[in-house]
């Protein structure tokens, strides 16, 4: 029995084409061997996500029932909900919310995004995936995880992986910011994916930095999302080539 989530983007594929100036159809994206069909540019958006204020303490996870996972940590593990280093915020999903030309469409890369479960945590915790792109869900723990996706715009699923090494592929067919993943065996486990129709997204690293490449010249609205601190928006004008900087600032209270 197969999961049939027809990527809607394929349907748009025919009428889009590489009709925009500077659009490099079939160009290879540096990040993941992506085959793109929509307009692409040469510019790079470099960004920083700042955190203004005292970072909340991440909750300690009680893994006493799971020695298999607990032994992978020195001391009691914490749940990395807020990754703050030197005033910079990690695990922020940044994506182009609007500004792409009408009708621009991008086919998903053939390489999957891997969502790993190790030490009873998800890796990565926050990531992006394109509509129709495979999410390869992998269990690296020698115990049972169930993986429940709880979207609202897409259909969800709830599958089980009782062994280390098991992988399961799933796709989403509609853009959605964000789709949460949870494990009910280990109630603390959470991951979030931003499902987009285009490849212009990134997740901030532990140093708060992110890079979005290949945006065609134009004016865009970027949105930044964090699981605790809500969303921020900014407008950016992307040149034909070169680099442009953006900055987001989050504070302890959600907005």
């Amino acid at each position, binding site marked *: 029995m197969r999961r049939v989530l027809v990527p809607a983007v394929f349907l748009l594929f025919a009428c889009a084409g590489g009709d925009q100036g500077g659009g490099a159809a079939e160009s290879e994206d540096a990040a993941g061997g992506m085959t793109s069909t929509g307009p692409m540019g040469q510019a790079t958006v470099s960004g920083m996500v700042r955190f203004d204020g005292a970072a909340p303490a991440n909750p300690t996870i009680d893994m006493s029932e799971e020695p298999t996972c607990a032994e992978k940590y020195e001391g009691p593990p914490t749940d990395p909900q807020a990754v703050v280093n030197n005033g910079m915020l990690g695990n922020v999903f940044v994506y182009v919310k609007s500004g792409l030309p009408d009708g621009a469409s991008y086919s998903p890369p053939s390489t999957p995004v891997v969502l790993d479960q190790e030490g009873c945590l998800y890796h990565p915790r926050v990531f992006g995936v394109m509509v129709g792109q495979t999410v390869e869900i992998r269990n690296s723990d020698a115990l049972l995880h169930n993986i429940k*996706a709880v979207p609202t715009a897409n*259909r*969800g699923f*709830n*599958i089980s992986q*009782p062994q280390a090494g*098991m992988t399961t592929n799933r796709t989403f067919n509609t853009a959605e910011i964000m789709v949460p993943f949870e494990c009910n065996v*280990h*109630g603390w486990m959470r991951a979030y994916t931003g499902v987009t129709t285009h490849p212009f997204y990134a997740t901030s690293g532990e140093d708060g930095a992110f890079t979005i490449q290949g945006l065609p010249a134009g004016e865009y609205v970027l949105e930044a999302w964090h699981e605790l601190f809500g969303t921020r928006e900014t407008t950016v004008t992307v040149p034909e080539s070169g680099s442009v900087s953006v900055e987001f600032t989050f504070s302890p209270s959600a907005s």
Partner: protein
Amino acid sequence: MTRAPAVRSALLPTLGRAALGLSLLATAMPPYRLIAQEGGSAAPGKAVYEKWCAGCHGDNGDGFGEAAAFMLPRPRDFTRGDYQVRTTASGELPTDADIRRIVDDGMPGTAMPGWRERLTPSERADVVAYLKGFSRFFEGASPEPIAFSGAPGRSAEGIEEGARVYQELECFRCHGAQGRGDGASAPTLTDDWDVPTRAADLSEYWYFNGGGTVEEIYYRLQTGLNGTPMPSFTDVIESGIITEDQLWRLAQYVRSLGPEREPEVRSVIRARLADGALPAGPSDSAWEDVEPAYVPMVGQIIVAPRWFAPTVDGIWVQAVHDGERVALRLTWNDPSRSPDPDWQEWLDRVAATMTDADGPVPTTQGPDRVQVQFPQRLSDGMERPYFLGGDSRRPAYVWRWLSEPDGVEEGLGTGLDRFAPFTGSSAVTHAASFTDGAWTVQYTRALAAADTSALAFVAGRAMPIAFYAADGSNGEGEVRGAVSAWYQLYLDVPTPPSAYVAPVLVTLLTAGLGVVVIVRAQRRGSRAASESTEAS
């Protein structure tokens, strides 16, 4: 498949079905007609929905009708198209037939009744069409059922194989070692609406939401229960970790965790005369020979604070006596030995969810408790104390057991929260044990009453008996808990010596009379013969 009416429904007439707004045992029913075809239409379905469904499921289909706040599990939210009981793959929409089945037959173990006898087939088809309209996911969708393989035959080896699969797939993490819903993850489970949800007690298949046959269990393993933590195991088969046959074995094993036949509710709990000594404690093997009676329990929804989400849904009662003393053993499933710090998370969620159900639910765990109640005196009529712990007019004679500290008190009740223990030492002795999500408590007392306020047990008479149970980790206590209706405890009458003498006397008498008759007949015959000889 046939689905026996939930035993729970038998109690609803006495326990306030009006409060639930479910006229389950309707007397005026439209004539049953065979369903010609499935197709219904949404327009007439709207009226049906608003009249019969919206009270719980809400006018907008979001699961927040007026009665919803009192329910756990909550009524289905139709807006997301997430249906638990389906024949389709995990995450998929249900087929029309899937929805129709729940409308027709209801969901055991929940407040959802079957509507087969209340609504006509076309009304039910129409309401299916209408409620699909609450979710945009149904637009243009044509959900397909999974093709299931046939079940292998049942065998002892197959059940053992199923038990191994239960271990391999780690079902115990939620459902517990014996399947009683007491796994390590059980206290943390929530559904997609952040409402606390139970890992099913697999030993009570008659309360399974999707039905308790092996086939239905297998379907749930394949499809998962959308909106709940229960995942699908289809991918585990596709990954080659187990075979389809092994998943069937698992379904057979799960079914075998319950009794062979669905328990029948009988009004009489019979205490036979013990062959020798009474059982020494709740784990005494002598109890294995005592037939248990099943007593369904339902939420106490008569006096405030009412409780619609009790943990204890049934108690197995066994009784035996030796002419001098009576021993009662109660066995029931409760995933927590309260108070239990691991269940605090559960209680906090229950308290946050059930805020509208008659005031705040305490967030401090009390003990588990079970109360056995009797009338103080046996009356010749049908008069019994009020089943909720008695009242001031007619107090109940009560045995009140608490898990922490473990003890039984004997006393008089004039209400569930009005209990006056007898002074002095209790005439009731007890022992309690808790294993893998099941409590077993044995009570023993002399038949003769030590206290003038206590009931004297009499063999050969039906004595009213009722039960109250509470799970301290579920916010339950003296009033929030589960109650039963009145049952009858009947102690077998010891056979008097005359019972053995009389048959012998009767036999001798009959034989003697027979001899007399034969002898007389022979004499008459020989006399007649001699007379005829003389005459000739």
